[in-house]
């Protein structure tokens, strides 16, 4: 069963901006799916249409087989949404916000209260349940929106940048929470600018750019496309010049920091062996950038470059 099926989704805003140019996408039931793209690529428009905040111009959207044009109310019962921006009444109490949201879903107080209590405990908000939402920290506000989205136990959870502005410790605890609910059967669609987050959580991925899907595959397959990785080596031995390591591209950042590009078929051991031959000792090693980030940048840059090329051709023709 497909948790979400999008076919040829198009959206043109009233100002003429074509935000989606025929997006097609399937998300399987139980998946943890990443929808990535640069700012303004069409992620939020796509998700906005799925949860009815934006009207589509054309195309078809089904949630667990329910066509939103046929029975949007039924489809909405299956979705929980955590939007990018805070969207609750800031003067309302935390518990009231969750219970009110449950009420909109048709849950009576008797049904909603135990669920709300459980979520407040799970997300570390229990002690704040009587506080007004405006009194919460940024991280707590994010967790409040997650609790609110889950109170009616949706089968599909849409997380639009759920950890934006959240410190790393809290972010990791939120990841673990999201993994838990995914393991319990909730399908999750995640958009995020933290690519490390998408890489460690998601099994499948789509990358959208300028209103079009430019990549839709499994995370494993996508990462397999990475042809090289750049590592940063902290050296014990200070260097005056960039060392020559046959077969590797190197760049000396400062006396004790060296960047080495290692291709898919090469190994880190080879680098260490070559460095040892020159009596250069290494203190530590780390990735320059997250692997998904490198791919993401190269994919998005590629479309930007082809657009630039096309633009130049048009200019030439018109001249």
């Amino acid at each position: 069963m497909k948790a979400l099926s999008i076919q040829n989704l198009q959206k043109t805003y009233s100002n003429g901006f074509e935000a989606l140019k025929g997006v097609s996408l399937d998300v399987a039931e139980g998946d943890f799916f990443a929808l990535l793209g640069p700012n303004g690529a069409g992620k939020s428009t796509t998700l906005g249409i799925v949860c009815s905040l934006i009207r589509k111009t054309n195309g078809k959207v089904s949630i667990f087989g329910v066509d939103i044009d046929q029975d949007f109310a039924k489809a909405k019962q299956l979705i929980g949404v955590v939007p990018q921006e805070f969207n609750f009444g800031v003067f309302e109490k935390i518990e009231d916000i969750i219970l009110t949201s449950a009420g909109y879903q048709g849950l009576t107080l008797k049904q909603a209260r135990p669920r709300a209590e459980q979520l407040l405990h799970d997300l570390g908000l229990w002690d704040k349940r009587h506080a007004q939402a405006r009194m919460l920290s940024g991280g707590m506000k994010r967790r409040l929106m997650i609790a609110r989205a889950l109170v009616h136990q949706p089968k599909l959870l849409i997380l639009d940048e759920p950890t934006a502005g959240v410190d790393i410790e809290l972010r990791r605890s939120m990841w673990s929470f999201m993994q838990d609910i995914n393991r319990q059967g909730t399908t999750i669609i995640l958009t995020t600018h933290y690519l490390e987050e998408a890489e460690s959580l998601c099994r499948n991925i789509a990358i959208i750019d300028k209103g079009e899907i430019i990549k839709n595959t499994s995370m494993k397959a996508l990462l397999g496309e990475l042809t090289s990785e750049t590592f940063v080596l902290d050296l014990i031995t200070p260097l005056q010049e960039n060392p020559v390591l046959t077969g590797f591209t190197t760049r000396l950042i400062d006396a004790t920091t060296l960047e080495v590009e290692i291709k898919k078929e090469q190994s880190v051991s080879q680098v260490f062996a070559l460095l040892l031959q020159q009596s250069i000792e290494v203190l530590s090693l780390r990735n320059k950038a997250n692997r998904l980030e490198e791919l993401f940048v190269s994919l998005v840059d590629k479309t930007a470059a082809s657009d630039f090329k096309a633009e130049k051709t048009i200019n030439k023709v018109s001249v």
Partner: protein
Amino acid sequence: MNSIRIYWVAFTTILIKEIRRFTRIWAQTLLPPAITMALYFVIFGNLIGSRIGEMGGFNYMQFIMPGLIMMSVITNSYSNVTSSFFSSKFQKSIEEMLVAPVPSWVILSGYILGGVTRGLLVGLIVTVLALFFTELTVHNLFITITVVFLTAVLFATGGFINALFARSFDDVTIIPTFVLTPLTYLGGVFYSIHLLPEFWQKASLFNPVLYMVNTFRYGILGVSDINPWAALAAICVFIVLLFGLALWLLEKGKGLRQ
């Protein structure tokens, strides 16, 4: 059947949220009309009213009491919906409702009844205050209750439409300040239109508030400048028209969905 149960729960949720909102900020919503109306009763009813003498066969305090109650009902039912719904738009908390399986008519009905509840509660507070200054007699209970309820529904619906169109907090106050207040003050709250020159008497007949105030006054005192039954019918027609318009705008997503 299941849908009806869901809609009922959603409707009561909106209503309870609305009541919680205006009672939480009672110093802004319930107290000011009580103070303002108490001042009207003291100044116009007692101090100046004692020198005016009778109007429509009743002393001035008795005459203005129904108008002042109706004025507070109109203002509060309207402003409750405009400020609450616009705040929801402004804070984006309206999205909670839009992503939930709540039909537009349930959203609209919930907000309207929230506005009606505040309007009637303020009306009740003003009535209790009025009892310190004059006696309350009810000539026709059915008309009294019906007209005050329908008027609150009508203005709450109007407030909803105002909030749908509003893009800033200024837009929320324009209609109450420049349309509602003049219509209410010129709607026979403080005088009988028979005191006016003929031209202004006829001009007053175009003021919808005149019909509501006079119908309510008829219900309480048994005197009116207009036919109360015709007025009730007209209010019902306007409710149907405004409710239809508000529902259409909401379905269209006016000011809510792109």
